[in-house]
Protein backbone atom coordinates (compact mmCIF):
# COMPACT_ATOMS: atom_id res chain seq x y z
CA UNK A 1 0.00 0.00 0.00
CA UNK A 2 1.52 3.32 -1.07
CA UNK A 3 0.83 6.92 -0.23
CA UNK A 4 -2.88 7.75 0.00
CA UNK A 5 -4.03 11.28 -0.85
CA UNK A 6 -7.57 12.48 -0.17
CA UNK A 7 -8.67 15.87 -1.49
CA UNK A 8 -11.59 17.86 -0.08
CA UNK A 9 -13.09 21.00 -1.57
CA UNK A 10 -13.75 23.55 1.18
CA UNK A 11 -17.06 24.73 -0.17
CA UNK A 12 -20.17 24.05 1.85
CA UNK A 13 -21.36 25.12 5.27
CA UNK A 14 -24.13 22.65 6.05
CA UNK A 15 -23.55 19.70 3.78
CA UNK A 16 -20.44 17.58 3.80
CA UNK A 17 -17.82 18.90 1.38
CA UNK A 18 -17.04 16.95 -1.80
CA UNK A 19 -14.11 14.63 -1.11
CA UNK A 20 -12.30 11.99 -3.14
CA UNK A 21 -9.16 9.90 -3.22
CA UNK A 22 -6.55 11.29 -5.60
CA UNK A 23 -5.94 8.66 -8.32
CA UNK A 24 -2.75 6.70 -7.75
CA UNK A 25 -1.62 7.73 -11.22
CA UNK A 26 -1.54 11.38 -10.04
CA UNK A 27 -0.05 10.91 -6.57
CA UNK A 28 3.54 11.14 -7.74
CA UNK A 29 2.82 14.27 -9.79
CA UNK A 30 1.17 15.97 -6.82
CA UNK A 31 3.99 14.92 -4.52
CA UNK A 32 6.60 16.42 -6.82
CA UNK A 33 4.62 19.64 -7.10
CA UNK A 34 4.50 19.91 -3.32
CA UNK A 35 8.26 19.49 -3.10
CA UNK A 36 8.96 22.31 -5.53
CA UNK A 37 6.89 24.99 -3.81
CA UNK A 38 9.13 27.68 -2.23
CA UNK A 39 8.55 28.40 1.43
CA UNK A 40 7.36 31.90 2.25
CA UNK A 41 6.58 33.92 5.34
CA UNK A 42 3.03 33.16 6.39
CA UNK A 43 0.58 36.03 5.85
CA UNK A 44 -2.10 36.64 8.48
CA UNK A 45 -4.69 33.85 8.58
CA UNK A 46 -7.46 34.49 6.06
CA UNK A 47 -10.96 35.36 7.19
CA UNK A 48 -12.44 32.48 5.27
CA UNK A 49 -16.11 33.01 4.63
CA UNK A 50 -19.05 31.43 2.92
CA UNK A 51 -18.54 29.70 -0.41
CA UNK A 52 -15.35 28.28 -1.88
CA UNK A 53 -12.35 28.80 0.39
CA UNK A 54 -9.81 26.33 -1.00
CA UNK A 55 -8.78 22.69 -1.15
CA UNK A 56 -7.60 20.46 1.67
CA UNK A 57 -5.26 17.54 0.99
CA UNK A 58 -4.78 14.74 3.51
CA UNK A 59 -1.69 12.63 2.87
CA UNK A 60 -1.20 9.33 4.64
CA UNK A 61 2.05 7.51 4.04
CA UNK A 62 2.70 3.93 5.16
CA UNK A 63 3.90 3.95 8.76
CA UNK A 64 3.83 7.75 8.72
CA UNK A 65 1.67 10.34 10.39
CA UNK A 66 -1.07 11.99 8.38
CA UNK A 67 -0.10 15.38 6.95
CA UNK A 68 -2.73 17.96 6.06
CA UNK A 69 -2.29 20.71 3.49
CA UNK A 70 -4.64 23.53 2.56
CA UNK A 71 -4.45 25.47 -0.69
CA UNK A 72 -6.07 28.85 -1.27
CA UNK A 73 -5.29 32.10 -3.05
CA UNK A 74 -1.88 30.91 -4.19
CA UNK A 75 -0.73 29.92 -0.73
CA UNK A 76 -0.29 26.38 0.60
CA UNK A 77 -0.19 25.77 4.34
CA UNK A 78 0.92 22.68 6.24
CA UNK A 79 2.10 22.31 9.82
CA UNK A 80 1.92 26.12 10.19
CA UNK A 81 4.44 26.58 7.38
CA UNK A 82 3.47 28.42 4.22
CA UNK A 83 4.52 27.85 0.62
CA UNK A 84 3.85 29.70 -2.61
CA UNK A 85 1.49 27.84 -4.90
CA UNK A 86 2.26 30.06 -7.88
CA UNK A 87 -0.65 30.39 -10.25
CA UNK A 88 -2.64 28.11 -7.96
CA UNK A 89 -0.93 25.25 -9.79
CA UNK A 90 -1.31 22.56 -7.12
CA UNK A 91 -4.77 23.77 -6.11
CA UNK A 92 -5.96 23.49 -9.69
CA UNK A 93 -4.19 20.15 -10.13
CA UNK A 94 -6.05 18.72 -7.16
CA UNK A 95 -9.38 20.13 -8.32
CA UNK A 96 -8.75 18.53 -11.69
CA UNK A 97 -8.51 15.10 -10.10
CA UNK A 98 -12.00 15.49 -8.66
CA UNK A 99 -13.92 17.03 -11.50
CA UNK A 100 -16.64 14.37 -11.38
CA UNK A 101 -17.21 15.05 -7.68
CA UNK A 102 -17.97 18.76 -8.08
CA UNK A 103 -21.03 20.45 -9.58
CA UNK A 104 -20.04 21.51 -13.11
CA UNK A 105 -20.97 25.17 -12.70
CA UNK A 106 -19.09 25.43 -9.43
CA UNK A 107 -16.08 23.62 -10.85
CA UNK A 108 -15.76 26.09 -13.69
CA UNK A 109 -15.99 29.06 -11.34
CA UNK A 110 -13.38 27.85 -8.86
CA UNK A 111 -10.70 26.63 -11.27
CA UNK A 112 -10.61 29.73 -13.46
Amino acid at each position, binding site marked *: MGVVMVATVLL*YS*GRENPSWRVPTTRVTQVGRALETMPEIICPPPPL*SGLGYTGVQLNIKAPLGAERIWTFANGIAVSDRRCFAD*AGRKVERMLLGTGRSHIDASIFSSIVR
Partner: protein
Amino acid sequence: MPTFAILDVFSGTPNPAWPIDDDLAQRMTALGNTESTPPALGYRGIKIVQTAAAAAAGAATEDALGAFTQSVVIFGSADAEKELLGVGVTAGAVNADLAAFVTQSLGGPALVASRGVSVSGACPPCGGNNAPAYDPAYWNDPSRQPVNNCYAYANNNATGTFPQPGRGSGQIFTSLDCNGVSAASVRDGLVTTNTFAACRDGWYAALVIWPGQDYHWYRQDTTGCWSHKPGQTPARNVDNSGAAITDPQQCDRGPYTVFCTYMVTNASVTIT
Protein backbone atom coordinates in the same frame (compact mmCIF):
# COMPACT_ATOMS: atom_id res chain seq x y z
CA MET B 1 2.21 37.56 -15.45
CA PRO B 2 0.50 37.54 -11.99
CA THR B 3 -1.82 40.39 -11.09
CA PHE B 4 -1.98 41.85 -7.62
CA ALA B 5 -4.18 44.39 -5.86
CA ILE B 6 -2.51 46.96 -3.60
CA LEU B 7 -4.55 48.77 -0.98
CA ASP B 8 -3.18 52.32 -1.14
CA VAL B 9 -3.82 53.46 2.40
CA PHE B 10 -0.68 53.68 4.51
CA SER B 11 1.84 56.46 4.69
CA GLY B 12 4.74 54.91 6.58
CA THR B 13 4.32 51.14 6.55
CA PRO B 14 4.06 49.03 3.38
CA ASN B 15 0.62 48.81 1.82
CA PRO B 16 -1.14 45.41 1.85
CA ALA B 17 -1.01 43.48 -1.42
CA TRP B 18 -2.72 40.30 -2.50
CA PRO B 19 -3.06 38.22 -5.69
CA ILE B 20 -6.24 38.41 -7.77
CA ASP B 21 -7.36 36.00 -10.48
CA ASP B 22 -7.49 36.76 -14.18
CA ASP B 23 -11.23 37.28 -14.35
CA LEU B 24 -11.27 39.82 -11.55
CA ALA B 25 -8.19 41.54 -12.95
CA GLN B 26 -9.81 41.95 -16.35
CA ARG B 27 -13.01 43.36 -14.90
CA MET B 28 -11.12 45.80 -12.71
CA THR B 29 -8.84 46.88 -15.52
CA ALA B 30 -11.87 47.71 -17.62
CA LEU B 31 -13.34 49.68 -14.76
CA GLY B 32 -10.41 51.57 -13.28
CA ASN B 33 -8.73 54.89 -13.91
CA THR B 34 -5.26 55.03 -15.39
CA GLU B 35 -4.30 58.07 -13.36
CA SER B 36 -3.36 58.03 -9.71
CA THR B 37 -5.70 59.47 -7.13
CA PRO B 38 -4.73 62.80 -5.51
CA PRO B 39 -2.26 62.51 -2.63
CA ALA B 40 -4.06 62.31 0.67
CA LEU B 41 -3.76 60.74 4.07
CA GLY B 42 -5.84 57.61 4.46
CA TYR B 43 -7.53 55.53 1.81
CA ARG B 44 -6.53 56.45 -1.75
CA GLY B 45 -7.88 53.54 -3.79
CA ILE B 46 -6.82 50.06 -4.83
CA LYS B 47 -4.08 49.73 -7.40
CA ILE B 48 -4.08 46.87 -9.90
CA VAL B 49 -0.55 45.87 -10.86
CA GLN B 50 1.31 43.18 -12.77
CA THR B 51 4.54 41.76 -11.43
CA ALA B 52 7.03 38.94 -11.89
CA ALA B 53 5.81 35.58 -10.62
CA ALA B 54 8.96 34.49 -8.82
CA ALA B 55 9.33 37.63 -6.77
CA ALA B 56 5.67 38.10 -5.97
CA ALA B 57 4.49 34.64 -4.99
CA GLY B 58 2.65 34.88 -1.72
CA ALA B 59 3.52 38.54 -1.20
CA ALA B 60 1.31 40.25 1.36
CA THR B 61 2.74 43.75 1.12
CA GLU B 62 3.58 46.18 -1.66
CA ASP B 63 7.29 46.10 -0.78
CA ALA B 64 7.46 42.33 -1.22
CA LEU B 65 6.11 42.46 -4.76
CA GLY B 66 9.37 43.64 -6.24
CA ALA B 67 9.16 45.55 -9.51
CA PHE B 68 5.63 45.92 -10.88
CA THR B 69 3.72 47.73 -13.57
CA GLN B 70 0.60 49.61 -12.53
CA SER B 71 -2.34 49.35 -14.89
CA VAL B 72 -5.25 51.11 -13.16
CA VAL B 73 -6.48 52.49 -9.85
CA ILE B 74 -9.93 51.56 -8.56
CA PHE B 75 -11.37 54.52 -6.69
CA GLY B 76 -14.92 55.86 -6.46
CA SER B 77 -16.46 52.51 -7.48
CA ALA B 78 -17.66 51.24 -4.11
CA ASP B 79 -18.92 47.84 -5.26
CA ALA B 80 -15.69 47.06 -7.09
CA GLU B 81 -13.59 48.29 -4.19
CA LYS B 82 -15.57 46.17 -1.75
CA GLU B 83 -15.14 43.12 -3.99
CA LEU B 84 -11.39 43.62 -4.13
CA LEU B 85 -11.26 44.31 -0.41
CA GLY B 86 -13.12 41.06 0.26
CA VAL B 87 -10.50 39.14 -1.70
CA GLY B 88 -7.80 40.88 0.31
CA VAL B 89 -9.46 39.96 3.59
CA THR B 90 -9.86 36.35 2.49
CA ALA B 91 -6.23 36.24 1.40
CA GLY B 92 -5.19 37.46 4.83
CA ALA B 93 -3.52 40.58 3.48
CA VAL B 94 -6.12 42.96 4.95
CA ASN B 95 -7.20 42.54 8.55
CA ALA B 96 -10.71 43.24 9.76
CA ASP B 97 -9.89 46.58 11.37
CA LEU B 98 -8.33 47.91 8.19
CA ALA B 99 -11.23 46.54 6.15
CA ALA B 100 -13.56 48.40 8.49
CA PHE B 101 -11.70 51.66 7.99
CA VAL B 102 -11.77 51.34 4.21
CA THR B 103 -15.41 50.28 4.18
CA GLN B 104 -16.30 53.40 6.12
CA SER B 105 -14.27 55.46 3.65
CA LEU B 106 -16.46 54.01 0.91
CA GLY B 107 -19.59 55.12 2.68
CA GLY B 108 -20.41 51.64 3.94
CA PRO B 109 -21.82 50.63 7.29
CA ALA B 110 -19.81 51.97 10.20
CA LEU B 111 -20.23 48.95 12.43
CA VAL B 112 -17.48 46.47 11.64
CA ALA B 113 -16.12 43.93 14.05
CA SER B 114 -12.81 42.19 14.21
CA ARG B 115 -12.60 38.47 14.74
CA GLY B 116 -12.76 37.67 18.41
CA VAL B 117 -13.54 41.25 19.38
CA SER B 118 -16.82 42.08 21.00
CA VAL B 119 -19.14 44.01 18.74
CA SER B 120 -20.40 47.40 19.77
CA GLY B 121 -23.64 48.55 21.33
CA ALA B 122 -25.20 49.08 17.91
CA CYS B 123 -26.41 45.48 17.94
CA PRO B 124 -30.17 45.00 18.16
CA PRO B 125 -31.64 43.89 21.50
CA CYS B 126 -31.26 40.18 22.08
CA GLY B 127 -34.71 38.63 22.38
CA GLY B 128 -33.65 35.11 23.26
CA ASN B 129 -33.75 34.54 26.98
CA ASN B 130 -31.24 31.70 26.67
CA ALA B 131 -29.05 33.10 23.92
CA PRO B 132 -25.49 31.71 23.91
CA ALA B 133 -22.47 33.91 24.38
CA TYR B 134 -20.12 34.39 21.43
CA ASP B 135 -17.29 32.01 22.29
CA PRO B 136 -15.07 31.34 19.26
CA ALA B 137 -12.31 29.83 21.39
CA TYR B 138 -14.60 26.93 22.27
CA TRP B 139 -15.83 26.29 18.74
CA ASN B 140 -12.51 26.84 17.00
CA ASP B 141 -10.63 24.36 19.15
CA PRO B 142 -9.01 21.79 16.81
CA SER B 143 -11.03 19.01 18.41
CA ARG B 144 -14.33 20.71 17.51
CA GLN B 145 -13.85 23.00 14.54
CA PRO B 146 -13.57 20.43 11.72
CA VAL B 147 -16.39 18.18 12.91
CA ASN B 148 -19.09 20.74 13.62
CA ASN B 149 -20.97 22.79 11.05
CA CYS B 150 -23.34 25.75 10.95
CA TYR B 151 -26.30 23.68 12.21
CA ALA B 152 -24.35 22.53 15.27
CA TYR B 153 -23.27 26.12 15.91
CA ALA B 154 -26.72 27.63 15.50
CA ASN B 155 -28.11 25.15 17.99
CA ASN B 156 -25.10 25.63 20.28
CA ASN B 157 -24.51 21.90 20.38
CA ALA B 158 -21.08 20.64 19.36
CA THR B 159 -22.19 17.12 18.46
CA GLY B 160 -19.03 16.42 16.50
CA THR B 161 -21.14 14.77 13.81
CA PHE B 162 -21.53 17.56 11.24
CA PRO B 163 -25.24 17.36 12.09
CA GLN B 164 -27.88 17.60 9.38
CA PRO B 165 -31.39 19.07 9.70
CA GLY B 166 -33.88 16.27 10.28
CA ARG B 167 -31.38 13.53 11.01
CA GLY B 168 -31.90 13.84 14.74
CA SER B 169 -35.64 13.23 14.32
CA GLY B 170 -35.28 10.37 11.89
CA GLN B 171 -35.58 11.94 8.43
CA ILE B 172 -32.99 14.22 6.90
CA PHE B 173 -34.22 16.96 4.56
CA THR B 174 -35.27 15.65 1.16
CA SER B 175 -35.07 18.89 -0.83
CA LEU B 176 -32.31 21.46 -0.65
CA ASP B 177 -34.55 24.51 -0.49
CA CYS B 178 -36.19 26.66 2.17
CA ASN B 179 -39.22 24.42 2.58
CA GLY B 180 -37.24 21.20 2.75
CA VAL B 181 -34.57 22.32 5.20
CA SER B 182 -36.87 24.37 7.44
CA ALA B 183 -39.35 21.48 7.67
CA ALA B 184 -36.56 19.11 8.64
CA SER B 185 -35.34 21.49 11.33
CA VAL B 186 -38.89 21.88 12.65
CA ARG B 187 -39.00 18.12 13.08
CA ASP B 188 -35.82 18.47 15.15
CA GLY B 189 -37.63 20.94 17.38
CA LEU B 190 -36.94 24.41 15.94
CA VAL B 191 -39.83 26.82 15.47
CA THR B 192 -40.26 29.23 12.57
CA THR B 193 -40.90 32.91 13.23
CA ASN B 194 -41.16 36.03 11.11
CA THR B 195 -39.10 38.29 13.34
CA PHE B 196 -36.43 38.24 16.02
CA ALA B 197 -37.85 41.22 17.89
CA ALA B 198 -39.96 39.44 20.48
CA CYS B 199 -38.54 38.30 23.80
CA ARG B 200 -38.94 34.56 24.27
CA ASP B 201 -37.28 31.48 25.69
CA GLY B 202 -34.52 29.86 23.69
CA TRP B 203 -32.63 31.90 21.09
CA TYR B 204 -32.96 33.00 17.51
CA ALA B 205 -31.42 31.32 14.48
CA ALA B 206 -31.77 32.06 10.79
CA LEU B 207 -31.75 29.78 7.73
CA VAL B 208 -30.40 30.78 4.30
CA ILE B 209 -29.89 28.79 1.10
CA TRP B 210 -27.28 28.61 -1.65
CA PRO B 211 -29.73 27.63 -4.38
CA GLY B 212 -29.34 24.03 -5.36
CA GLN B 213 -26.10 23.63 -3.41
CA ASP B 214 -26.23 24.07 0.33
CA TYR B 215 -27.87 25.63 3.36
CA HIS B 216 -26.39 27.81 6.12
CA TRP B 217 -27.41 28.94 9.60
CA TYR B 218 -26.74 31.98 11.76
CA ARG B 219 -27.52 32.44 15.45
CA GLN B 220 -28.12 35.49 17.62
CA ASP B 221 -25.74 35.81 20.57
CA THR B 222 -26.17 37.56 23.91
CA THR B 223 -24.79 40.75 22.36
CA GLY B 224 -27.82 40.92 20.06
CA CYS B 225 -25.59 40.62 17.01
CA TRP B 226 -25.34 37.39 15.05
CA SER B 227 -22.53 34.90 14.49
CA HIS B 228 -22.03 31.77 12.43
CA LYS B 229 -19.69 28.93 11.59
CA PRO B 230 -19.28 28.24 7.86
CA GLY B 231 -18.82 24.48 7.64
CA GLN B 232 -15.56 23.26 9.10
CA THR B 233 -14.07 26.77 9.13
CA PRO B 234 -13.81 28.89 12.30
CA ALA B 235 -16.81 30.48 13.98
CA ARG B 236 -16.93 34.23 13.46
CA ASN B 237 -19.17 37.21 14.15
CA VAL B 238 -18.68 38.98 10.84
CA ASP B 239 -20.19 38.51 7.40
CA ASN B 240 -18.44 37.89 4.08
CA SER B 241 -17.45 41.57 3.92
CA GLY B 242 -16.02 41.62 7.42
CA ALA B 243 -18.96 43.55 8.86
CA ALA B 244 -20.74 42.77 12.11
CA ILE B 245 -24.07 41.03 11.55
CA THR B 246 -27.01 42.97 12.94
CA ASP B 247 -29.52 41.08 10.79
CA PRO B 248 -28.69 37.97 8.73
CA GLN B 249 -31.35 38.93 6.22
CA GLN B 250 -29.35 42.05 5.35
CA CYS B 251 -25.73 40.91 5.63
CA ASP B 252 -23.27 39.79 2.94
CA ARG B 253 -23.89 36.05 2.64
CA GLY B 254 -21.74 35.23 -0.38
CA PRO B 255 -23.46 32.61 -2.52
CA TYR B 256 -26.18 31.94 0.08
CA THR B 257 -28.47 34.43 -1.59
CA VAL B 258 -31.87 33.15 -0.47
CA PHE B 259 -33.02 34.17 2.99
CA CYS B 260 -35.56 31.64 4.25
CA THR B 261 -36.71 32.43 7.76
CA TYR B 262 -35.80 33.23 11.30
CA MET B 263 -36.31 30.37 13.73
CA VAL B 264 -36.22 29.78 17.47
CA THR B 265 -34.17 26.99 18.95
CA ASN B 266 -33.33 25.82 22.45
CA ALA B 267 -31.19 23.36 24.39
CA SER B 268 -33.78 20.59 24.02
CA VAL B 269 -33.61 20.47 20.25
CA THR B 270 -32.31 17.12 18.99
CA ILE B 271 -29.60 17.25 16.35
CA THR B 272 -27.28 14.52 15.14
